[in-house]
Structure formats: C-alpha cells, structure tokens
C-alpha cells in the first residue's frame, strides 16, 4: 500500500506537491475561520503587541511583489526587449505577492467586514490610508497587466466557448498595448505604497524606535533589490523543476547584477543613516539602535541576515555570479537577498511594536513584550504562503506564456 503511494507520488511529482500544499492551506483556512468568527483574541496579538507575524508577512509579500513589478515596469519603460520574458514572470509574481499581502491584512485588521472604509471615508492624514489607496490602485494595474497572460489559458475557451475566449484574448491584446502606461502609473503607486509603509513606522505614537525620516526610501530601495532577486530565484526554480527555459540566463545574470548593485546602494544609505543617528542622542531612537545591534532577540537577525549574509554577502554573490557565469552563485545571492528582506521587515516591526520607548519602568511598564506568534497566526501565514505557491505552480504549468522551450544539452 505505502509502496504503491510512493510509486504514484514519484510518477506525479507535481500533483504530489499540490496535494501536500493542501495540508497547510486547510490549516490556514481553519485558522482564518477562527479569526474571522472569534476575533483577534485567538491570536497572541495584544494592545502591547498589536502588529506581529501577519504584518511581517504582509510587508515581505508586498515588498517582493513591488520589486518584481519595478523590474517589469523598467523593462517596458526603458524598452529593454530582452527583459520581456522575465517581465511577464515578474508581473505574475507581483499579482500573487500583493494578493497574499492583502489576505494577511484582511486577517489582521480586526474589522475585516469594513475593509472598504478607506475607499469611502478618506483619512488623508493617515499613513495607512495612503497605504490602502496605493495598494488598491497598484493591485488594479497589476491585474490589468496580468489579464493578457491569463486570457490565453485554453481552459477559458473550453468553459466559456471559443467566441468569448476570442473576445477576451482581443481585449488582452488591446490591454497589452497599454503596458507602458500601466508601467508608468504602477511605478508611481508602487513607490507611494512602499514609502507609506516605511513612513508608517516613523509616526507610531510613543514608539520612536524606528523613527527615521529615511524609512520610506529604505523600504522602496530594499524591496526593489529583493523583489528582483526573488523573480530571478523563482525563474531559476521553475526552469530547473520544469526542465525548460523561459528566460535566457544572460538576462537572469543581468537582473541579478541589478539587484546586487541596488543592494549595495541600500547598504551605503543605511551606513550613513546609522552614522548620522549615532552622532547625537535622540530619545527612543538611540536606545533602539543599541537594542537592534546588541540584544539576543535582534542581533542575530540584524548582523547575520540583514547586514551580513542578506546584505553584503548577497550583493557580492549577485554581482560576482555574472562575472563567473555561475548559476549556483546567482541562486545563493538571490536566496540571501530574500532572507535579508524578511529579517529587515521582522526587525522593523518587532522594534516598533514590542520594544519600549525607554528602559525606565514607570514610563513603560511592562518593559518588554515577549511576543511569539501562536498556532493560529502560523496557520494563517503558512496557509497564505501555501496557497500562493499552489497558484504560482498552477500558473507556471498551465499558462501558455510560461510554457518555455526545451534546453539543449551543453557541448563539451
């Protein structure tokens, strides 16, 4: 019996993977149901730790999506035709990333039934209002950009009939011609989205920890580098697992080099920002710098992942990969850059919402909030991640745009 299952799994690796992904999706659906029916009380989110793992997931998904979108927009705006195959992959990733970010947010906002309020009741002084409006417009643009790719799905013709399918494809071709306009408008809103997310941390009342006027620009630059690296990594994986070629490797090396260069610019900016911050004493901020760089909870993710491996290490591998023409180096660099972004978003959120403003107990009591995400939070995060992976895998398998070509055996 077990041998038979193992044999069938080996014969159908794709569907085995899809079936395995259904486990975390089911757990995520259960956790999501509990959160929606019982409220945030089933999580470890409290008044003293109001933003937790879901916000980290939201920032990571939307950050990677934003960088992917930036790459595709640049390909259209700079008329880099050789980037087109990768740009199409990048837009698909952007759609899924933003979809995942919005799913995580829907769980987190506490009043999910009022998700539409920011569209109607404009709070122009609120950073989160700007976040909502930006992601709404930007997500709409990404949907329009992906439409021509999805319209080519043969399944649509079988379900809706050839005439409707033809009309949808015609609409898709028409929308494709507007791609440069979408790219331009999308670039504006991807930047306002990332910058308002970064700026949100600068205006959290009573929590001066991550207050930097440079936060908005840090969010834009780091997401651009990691998002391009993520698109490179996903393309490498799809080609390797599917034994096909979608994007020429020279384009992947070039994109990796772009990500590495942007990462170096980001590190340079952070170095000067840290130097300026250390020049004088700023209540809250100065203590937070010490916490970030020395405390057990933050020092490893900060020095190892954010700055070391995920920062400088990733940049070196990404830049070096093209010179050595090494796919292994490219994959290592891309993976490290993604990990660096996750560590950065985790540190930023935890510093802002679980660390006290001062170490004076009468001012801030309790001194430190020990936030650890519980099973419901893990359930939703893993469920969203698994659902995104499943949709991505199905898209790569069935959408004609990602069919690719068989590679040739290398000559000795």
């Amino acid at each position, binding site marked *: 019996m077990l041998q038979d299952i193992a044999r069938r799994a080996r014969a159908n690796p794709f569907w085995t993977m899809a079936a395995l992904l259904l486990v975390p999706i089911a757990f995520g659906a259960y956790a999501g149901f509990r959160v929606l029916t019982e409220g945030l009380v089933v999580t470890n989110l409290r008044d003293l730790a109001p933003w937790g793992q879901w916000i980290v997931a939201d920032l990571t998904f939307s950050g990677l999506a934003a960088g992917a979108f930036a790459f595709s927009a640049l390909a259209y705006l700079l008329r880099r035709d050789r980037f087109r*195959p990768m740009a199409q992959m990048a837009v698909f990733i952007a759609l899924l990333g933003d979809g995942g970010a919005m799913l995580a947010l829907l769980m987190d906002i506490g009043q999910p039934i009022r998700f539409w309020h920011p569209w109607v009741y404009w709070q122009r002084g609120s950073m989160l209002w700007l976040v909502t409006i930006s992601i709404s417009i930007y997500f709409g643009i990404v949907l329009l950009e992906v439409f021509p790719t999805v319209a080519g799905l043969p399944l649509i013709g079988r379900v809706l009939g050839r005439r409707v399918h033809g009309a949808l494809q015609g609409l898709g071709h028409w929308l494709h011609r507007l791609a440069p306009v979408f790219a331009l408008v999308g670039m504006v809103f991807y930047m306002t989205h990332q910058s308002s997310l970064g700026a949100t941390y600068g205006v959290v009342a009573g929590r001066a920890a991550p207050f930097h006027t440079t936060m908005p620009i840090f969010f834009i630059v780091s997401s651009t580098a990691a998002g391009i690296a993520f698109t490179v990594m996903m393309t490498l994986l799809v080609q390797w697992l599917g*034994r096909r070629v979608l994007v*020429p490797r020279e384009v992947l090396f070039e994109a990796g080099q772009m990500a590495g260069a942007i990462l170096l610019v980001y590190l340079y900016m952070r170095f000067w920002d840290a130097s300026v911050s250390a020049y004088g004493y700023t209540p809250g901020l100065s203590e937070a710098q010490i916490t970030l760089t020395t405390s057990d909870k933050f020092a490893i993710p900060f020095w190892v992942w954010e700055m070391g491996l995920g920062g400088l290490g990733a940049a070196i591998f990404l830049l070096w990969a093209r010179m050595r023409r090494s*796919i292994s180096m490219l994959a290592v660099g891309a993976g490290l850059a993604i990990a660096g972004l996750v560590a950065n978003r985790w540190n930023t959120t935890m510093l802002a919402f679980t660390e006290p403003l001062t170490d004076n107990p009468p001012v801030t009591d309790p001194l430190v909030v020990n936030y650890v995400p519980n099973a419901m939070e893990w359930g939703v995060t893993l469920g969203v991640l698994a659902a995104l992976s499943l949709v991505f895998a199905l898209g790569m398998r069935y959408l004609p745009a990602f069919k690719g070509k068989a590679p*040739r055996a290398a000559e000795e």
Partner: protein
Amino acid sequence: MDFSVVIQEVLVVVFGVGLPLVVLLWLAVQMGVWYDAHEDPPFSELEGEQE
C-alpha cells in the same frame, strides 16, 4: 552561567542560520549542476513564446 540562554542561542544559530544556509547551498548546487549541463535555446525562440 545560565545554560538555558546558551542552549537557546545555539538553537537559534543552528536552526535560524545554519539550516537555512545548508538548504540554500544544497539547492544552489543542484540547480548549478543542471544549468551547467544545458544551454539556452536561441533568444528569438523564447521571445516568440511570450507573444
């Protein structure tokens, strides 16, 4: 010396740094082997695929 703190830090380094690095390196080497054994088709073929 508080051994629980030491153990906690060792676990963080092993599972938070070591394990992800080993997985990433293994994946990168596996991909590298396959890519080195193959060549891309001409760009014109790939471009045509996207239209």
